[in-house]
């Protein structure tokens, strides 16, 4: 009976609390309890989420492990394909450019990928592909250099800025000279008579007087230097080719 009386007291107390809370008289209780409840709930929730994550990882560990391995392989494959795709795309652009270049249709080309750039440009075609020394190497209709050394499947290209390079050239105005390298990796048009005009931005082409085909673009005049006591004057040329970004070049194997 005592417990029943207690029960009634607690029931009445509960109803009083309900009424008080209904009329929002117990805001301080909620405020105080929130300060305790929120950290507890946050902690429990974070733990539960971590446990759930752990459970998921544990339950699916073989699958996840396989997926990670597969992902690694696919990523590697993707990167390889991306590289291959980039290389092919560039090669395609080059081929299109080469096809559209105003070179005689009688020219035959050997497509060569660049293996290294040092003093010489090393390319991946050699005597097996019909490459011989002195053959011109072009990108589009722009002359890059000439073959210096040939092995069975590799060749070295002497660039125009090499000190040993020597190519017979002419400007767009018909002024003749010799293109070669100069200390400091610049390309120089030299052996130009003082009376001949050298105008800035004039294009310079091969003249065809040596073994090279005529009218291959070499570059354009960037700076002219002359003095009155010399017989010849010279000009520094700039080439449109950026060797660092080159991946494919073409060797003209037959004219």
């Amino acid at each position, binding site marked *: 009976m005592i*417990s*029943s009386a*207690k*029960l009634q007291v*607690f*029931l009445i*107390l*509960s*109803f*009083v*609390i*309900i009424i*008080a*809370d*209904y009329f929002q008289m*117990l805001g301080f*209780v*909620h405020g105080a*309890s929130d300060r305790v*409840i929120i950290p*507890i*709930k946050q902690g*429990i*929730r974070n733990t*539960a989420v971590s446990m759930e994550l752990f459970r998921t990882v544990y339950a699916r560990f073989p699958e996840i492990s396989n997926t990670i391995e597969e992902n690694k392989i696919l990523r590697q494959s993707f990167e390889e394909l991306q590289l291959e795709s980039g290389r092919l795309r560039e090669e395609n652009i080059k081929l299109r450019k080469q096809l559209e270049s105003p070179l005689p249709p009688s020219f035959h080309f050997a497509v060569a990928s660049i293996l290294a750039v040092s003093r010489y440009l090393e390319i991946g075609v050699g005597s097996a592909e019909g490459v011989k020394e002195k053959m011109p190497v072009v990108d589009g209709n722009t002359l890059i250099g000439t073959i210096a050394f040939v092995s069975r499947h590799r060749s070295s290209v002497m660039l125009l800025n090499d000190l040993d390079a020597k190519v017979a050239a002419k400007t767009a105005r018909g002024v003749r000279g010799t293109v070669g390298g100069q200390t400091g990796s610049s390309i120089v048009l030299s052996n130009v008579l003082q009376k001949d005009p050298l105008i800035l931005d004039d294009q310079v082409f091969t003249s065809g007087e040596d073994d090279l085909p005529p009218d291959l673009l070499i570059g354009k005049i960037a700076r002219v230097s002359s003095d009155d006591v010399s017989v010849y004057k010279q000009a520094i040329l700039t080439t449109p080719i950026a060797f660092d970004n080159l991946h494919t070049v073409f060797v003209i194997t037959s004219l």
Partner: protein
Amino acid sequence: MIWFYTICLFIAVVFETTIAPVPITAGILALFALVFAGENPWIFFLTGLMWDLFSMHLLGTGSVLFLIVSWIAQRYKRKFYLGNMLYQIIFISVVVASTSLIYYRTIQPAYLGASVLVSFLLGRLITMTSGSRWEDTGRLGI
């Protein structure tokens, strides 16, 4: 032993209001109502308040519900103590189902089953470890 009950109830309240809407507090309270047979009504009162605070119900409603459960357990204690164990299971199930229906507006069989099972197993555990107040018919005056 009272601390063990309190900790169990606290864990149940936190679990129910934080992790999953399983009416496990009501199940455990129904079990304690059977164990205490109307004694210690303050446990039901305070658990109800705690439950209301954690679940943001109107303060006091949980207390009323749980005190009513306690009163029913006291009212039919003879039947629960001396009758078939099925009565106890049915009592716990009814309390859990009612709470679920009132507060969650749904009865999910899986949650219901889990709550009843946990409560019943906890009751068995208490019976085995604490000299079994549950089956202490001396308190019934018979």
